[in-house]
């Protein structure tokens, strides 16, 4: 593999203590959420990150997406360093090159599905015939055709997730961060969306950093998998997943490598 696309060295994060007044005692500083975390992501790689809840997974993605600031360490995307300790210098999404699919879909309730999907193109001033055609193609691929003019409250949970995912894919950022995007869905819809995601990933082979707390999901989707420890977050394990692609998400449990990996990761998460 060539030079890493994202590189994180000695990352540490703690949140500012809540305002001086009203706090109990206030003797000790806020605890570290992440401490001495280092890893890198190569171009085109599908990296899954797993960790117990409260392990700072969302905080980590927020720092990479530059909507939150690191307290210490080094965060580099391509040749650019993210600011450390200075929240005012953050560049969210770093010039539209880092897409972010959050836990909540954050669809704009006053826009229809199509208008939501076109929103990034509209604000980037890239709305034209060919980008529109691409948006329509993605809507069809994700099975949302027929729902273009529906408002978010008229869509099911799975459809909303699909719409949020397409909204990120439509402007084609080279890196996409995903924070438990399928967390709140039922098992059926979830598997379906995992298949959709792999199919969409195959279209463009983007770099994906996918956070989850589901071991099976992390194995089924990723090329490589990071296991985070409890707070303060450190790397508890790292595994290459060599199950050949294209993968069968539904049948992956029967793969011998899957069972062995599953047990090891469970051990690391204890």
């Amino acid at each position, binding site marked *: 593999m060539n030079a890493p696309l994202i590189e994180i060295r000695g990352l540490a994060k703690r949140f500012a203590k809540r305002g001086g007044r009203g706090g109990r005692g206030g003797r000790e500083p806020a605890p570290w959420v992440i401490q001495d975390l280092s890893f890198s992501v190569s171009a085109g790689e599908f990296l899954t990150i797993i960790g117990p809840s409260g392990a700072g997974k969302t905080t980590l993605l927020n720092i990479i997406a530059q909507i939150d600031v690191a307290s210490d360490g080094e965060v580099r995307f391509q040749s650019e360093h993210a600011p450390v300790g200075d929240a005012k210098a953050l560049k969210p999404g770093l010039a539209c090159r880092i897409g972010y699919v959050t836990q909540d879909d954050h669809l704009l309730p006053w826009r229809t599905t199509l208008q939501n999907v076109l*929103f990034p193109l509209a604000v980037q001033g890239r709305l034209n015939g060919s980008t529109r055609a691409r948006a329509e193609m993605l809507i069809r691929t994700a099975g949302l055709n027929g729902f273009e003019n529906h408002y978010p409250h008229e869509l099911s949970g799975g459809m909303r997730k699909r719409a949020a995912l397409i909204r990120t894919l439509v402007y084609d950022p080279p890196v996409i961060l995903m924070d438990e995007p399928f967390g709140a869905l039922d098992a059926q819809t979830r598997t379906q969306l995992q298949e959709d995601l792999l199919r969409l990933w195959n279209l463009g082979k983007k770099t994906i950093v996918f956070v989850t707390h589901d071991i099976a999901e992390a194995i089924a989707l990723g090329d490589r998998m990071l296991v985070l420890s409890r707070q303060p977050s450190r790397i508890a394990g790292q595994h290459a997943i060599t199950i050949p692609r294209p993968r069968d998400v539904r049948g992956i449990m029967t793969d011998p490598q899957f069972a062995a990996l599953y047990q090891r990761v469970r051990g690391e998460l204890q």
Partner: protein
Amino acid sequence: MTTLGGRSSIGRSDLWQWIAASLRARGDQILVFVVLVAIWQVLSMTLGSYWVGSPWGVATRFAAGIADGALLRQASYTVIEAAAGFVLGALPAVALPFALRRLPIATAILDPFMVGGYGAPKLALAPLFILWFGIGIESKIALVAVTVFFIVYFSTQAGIRALDAGLVRMAQIVGASEQHVARHIVFPGAVPYVFAGLRLAMPYAIGGAIIAELISANRGLGYLLQLGAMNFDTTGIFVALAATTCIVFLGNWSVNALERRLLRWRPPSDVTLQAGT
């Protein structure tokens, strides 16, 4: 008011169907209305129509006032004052919180004054405005504008504060500028709150106009009320009150119609259910 024109395109049979459907939907409301009128009638009979004008007397005077145009003319003065003051008060009340959104220090400085202005009894300002602007239409408009301003200001501000920070972050990540965020996220998100303020302020606008007329005017519904009181004409007072109520209903209906048009994206709530569509 302009939305009234929309109905004219509907054919006559459609209109009858619409009336029949509304009657069916509003059966219970009609029942309550009848009960209230009955209580009114009983009061009028026991206390005498000198103290409480009879419903029939009020209805006939009301109809006569509409037929000869006198009541409509007086009502139109009040409506014009209320509408002008409403617009004059509501526009800055909506614009100011948006302007202050990115200026927390200015907001903090202004806040206690706004709270003071909100809490002060605006109707007590009426004599002052009459002193400043005379007994013409200007003093009424000023009173209405001040009353409306504070109500709409605080509800708009609440809408901006209730903004989902996640939506803003999403927009920033996909490349939205500060203006994009204001236009596509903050404004549409605050519109329901703006309308809540407008709906709340609407009766106050009409009330404010009438109070200002009561104090000093030679026309308008407030003037009619005052005239009725001076002539010991309770029926006249009741006619003016009935006209006021009709105006409040019309105003409320206009605000609701505008809101339904602008907030089509909202999941059906009690507001849209009331529409009986």
